[in-house]
């Protein structure tokens, strides 16, 4: 602030300079991040129109460069983008679809544009986009980003007629410097886990060696889609409130509150106004700045508002979660729990947990943890994540007769929220909010109890079989030794053994092994 030369930089330039904080740390990480950002945009695009996603990804080495450059192509069957918006949606940072209180995977499309920007600065090649919303036209663009101005430069533009049946979707293709060898494990893992959390999606990936990975859908049923909701009063800060007041047409404070807030009905509003001695008839526009501050504080602290409605969330549901886990992990046993919606700082969230045992789950000496947020797998910094803490530090597995060091167990945690509390822009791990921690803990406890019951039933059946053979062995011995003690011939145990056989499995035999 003290330099004597001042100028403004564009958001493009800012993020170009600080690209490592969005996941473009090095060529290996950049390939991984680019793929996941495009795939997640495609998933959102298909789900937004209620279509089971079909996403095809290919990563091909381009030999036209002296260094390691790849052509990344992602094709989806999503909503498509209206022709006139395409240059901005892909060529202008901090431009995107309206930010709403609705569960989405990405952060305002920043990630996808960072991939385009990264491709451009490492290879100087334009991004190539083909898209149609399923109407009569298909739009094709080649774009560069003017970083200093944060504006798209249209290198080429074509409009094609859409055939019949009409195609809908988006194809995006970039060139980027990358390192596939060092990123391939994470990329394949990313696809596998995405397939787990999106069992209704079909994913294919052709890697630079020409290997085709396919992740087929096992259902066409989509989870209930999410609705946009008004802000909850507990999540409103002064700035948001100020903006709402500026743009409202309501003429009284009472009307303003009822109209603009989620879960604020007439009765609640009256209670609220009374408690804080506010005049219901007051024109909201007449509030002074310090009155606005006090109102925001009151809204945040009034504890009689109902918690947010989860209709703005789109959890997977227990059935789809089980489906996904079965499909990708093929366990002997799996159970899923969806918790009731809860909130932190006024944002609604839902925790879903699955617990899988045996079968395809490897025995690694520790619990395998799969973390998802809004159906996105989180692959980095596992040990900083709240779920890791719950699984490894909070839950006492011994209590459920489960031994994490020996039993082959996987825990799948999925958190849905209109606002996932990431600690970084790179969407890598979830911060340790007490409300979220508590819900994850409760869900895992329920799942652990179910697994515990399954395991103990399994063990009971196995044990019952042993009983008869044990009786047979020992009763014969006792008979023999009593004959040694008395010098008489061995007594006949057959009558006794018949009684044991009748007893088998009944409660007449006391104790257990």
């Amino acid at each position, binding site marked *: 602030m003290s330099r004597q030369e001042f100028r403004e930089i564009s958001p493009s330039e800012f993020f170009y300079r600080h690209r490592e904080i969005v996941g473009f740390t090095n060529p290996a990480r950049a390939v991984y991040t680019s793929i996941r950002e495009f795939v997640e945009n495609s998933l959102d695009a298909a789900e937004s129109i209620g279509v089971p996603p079909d996403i095809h990804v290919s990563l091909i080495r381009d030999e036209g460069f002296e260094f390691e450059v790849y052509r990344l192509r992602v094709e989806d069957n999503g909503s498509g983008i209206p022709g006139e918006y395409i240059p901005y949606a892909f060529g202008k940072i901090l431009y995107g679809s309206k930010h709403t209180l609705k569960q989405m995977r990405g952060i305002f499309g920043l990630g996808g544009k960072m991939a385009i920007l990264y491709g451009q600065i490492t290879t100087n090649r334009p991004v190539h986009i083909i898209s149609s919303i399923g109407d009569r036209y298909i739009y094709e663009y080649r774009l560069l980003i003017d970083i200093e101005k944060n504006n798209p430069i249209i290198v080429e533009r074509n409009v094609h007629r859409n055939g019949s049946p009409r195609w809908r979707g988006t194809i995006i293709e970039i060139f980027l410097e990358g390192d596939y060898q060092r990123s391939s494990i994470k990329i394949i893992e990313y696809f596998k886990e995405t397939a787990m959390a999106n069992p209704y999606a079909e994913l294919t990936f052709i890697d630079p060696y020409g290997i085709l990975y396919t992740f087929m859908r096992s259902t066409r049923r989509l989870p209930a889609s999410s609705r946009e909701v008004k802000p909850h009063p507990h999540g409103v800060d002064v700035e948001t409130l100020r903006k709402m007041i500026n743009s409202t047409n309501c003429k009284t404070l009472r009307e303003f509150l009822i109209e603009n807030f989620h879960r604020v009905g007439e009765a609640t509003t009256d209670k609220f106004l009374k408690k804080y001695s506010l005049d219901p008839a007051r024109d909201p526009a007449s509030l002074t700045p310090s009155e606005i501050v006090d109102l925001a504080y009151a809204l945040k602290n009034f504890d009689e508002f109902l918690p947010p409605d989860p209709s703005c969330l789109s959890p997977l549901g227990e059935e789809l979660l089980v489906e996904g886990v079965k499909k990708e992990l093929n366990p002997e046993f799996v159970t899923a729990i969806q918790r009731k919606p809860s909130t932190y700082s006024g944002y609604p969230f839902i925790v879903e947990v699955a617990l899988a045992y045996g079968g395809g789950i490897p025995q690694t000496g520790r619990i395998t943890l799969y973390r998802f947020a809004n159906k996105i797998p989180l692959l980095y910094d596992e040990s900083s994540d709240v779920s890791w803490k719950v699984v490894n530090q909070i839950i006492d597995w011994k209590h459920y007769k489960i031994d994490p060091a020996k039993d082959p167990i996987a825990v799948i945690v999925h958190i849905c929220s209109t606002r996932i509390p990431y600690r970084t822009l790179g969407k890598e791990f979830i911060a340790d909010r007490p409300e979220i921690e508590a819900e994850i803990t409760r869900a895992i406890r329920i799942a652990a109890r179910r697994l515990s019951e399954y395991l103990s039933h399994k063990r009971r059946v196995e044990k019952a079989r042993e009983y008869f053979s044990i009786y047979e062995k020992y009763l014969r011995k006792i008979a023999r030794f009593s004959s040694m003690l008395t010098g008489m011939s061995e007594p006949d145990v057959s009558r006794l053994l018949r009684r044991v056989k009748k007893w088998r499995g009944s409660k007449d*035999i006391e104790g257990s092994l």
Partner: protein
Amino acid sequence: MEGIEGYRRISIRERRRDVLASLEKLGYDIYHTIEEGEFPYITMPSRSTKNIRYDPILRQYVLGEYKVRRTTRNIRHLRPLTQLVWVAAIAHQLCSQGKTSTLRDIFYMAQAFEVDFVDQYESDDIVTDLETVIGYPREDFNIYPEERSSIFGDLTIEYTVPGYEGRRINLLSHPDGFVIGPTLSTAEFVECGAEKVIVIEKGAMFTRLVEERAYEKFKAILIHTAGQPPRATRKLIRRLNRELGLPVYIFVDGDPWGMHIAMVIISGSANAAHLTDLTTPDARWAGVYASDIGRYKLPSDPLTDIDIKRLYELKNDPRYRSGIWSKEIEVFLQHKRKAEQEAFSRYGLSYIVDVYLKERMEELG
């Protein structure tokens, strides 16, 4: 040869006959139950802590009224019951043939019968069960431990083991000591020139007392326990006291562990509450006392945490709640020091006999 008043002396041979009869009865009971098509069982006093109580008349721990029933109706009892009957059968064989065996042997012999013991702890435990069921210590059915104590002093014994029946020896004849094993344990006392018994915890101190002629100076039989004495040795001490009327003095290290060796000789241990005939209630603890450390300015070591924990455990034992026991525990806890028997070596090798034990015997009278 004059025993303590009221002590009913049973000869070694009579006793052997009683043991055989008890084992056979156990066999018949089971035999008949099986023949009747019922599940065989055994009833015996419970050895759980709740059923152990201190008997002030016998002056030892004994088992209470509570019984446990091992029944083959309970699958968890099936294996231990089988093992118990097997041990009974083997004990019967040993006694009939006049052979002895050890706990370790029992563990190995089991293999020929496919009586599966996980380890020797388990077979040892079953032997203890058999003791409880028939009420005799295992030495009476010829199962001896590995450890050996030794004895030295003016006592003539007569052997009862096959091949040595009627032969006699005087235990003064080998100053390094006679091993207390199955033959000595089953010998009868014939003649005794000693007037007391001094029981010593450690071999080195035993040698010291021999060299310093304590057996002459005090007219004493010396017994070396080698730590916590084997039960055959405890029984021998009891017999010396009961059959010959000799007062017994126990000289151990000055720490909670030594103290407890003395107590076990005097009134038994809680885990042998199912047995009588092993204790010597009139024996006296002769040192090293906690108060001796200050009194004789002995080299000493600080009590460890484990020592102190042990002292607090002893405080809760009713036998330690009065007299010298409680007084010395308080001294231990106050000064937090302990001393070994050898600590008297600080004053030269003769001091222990000529000064310390002399003074102590006079004090105890």
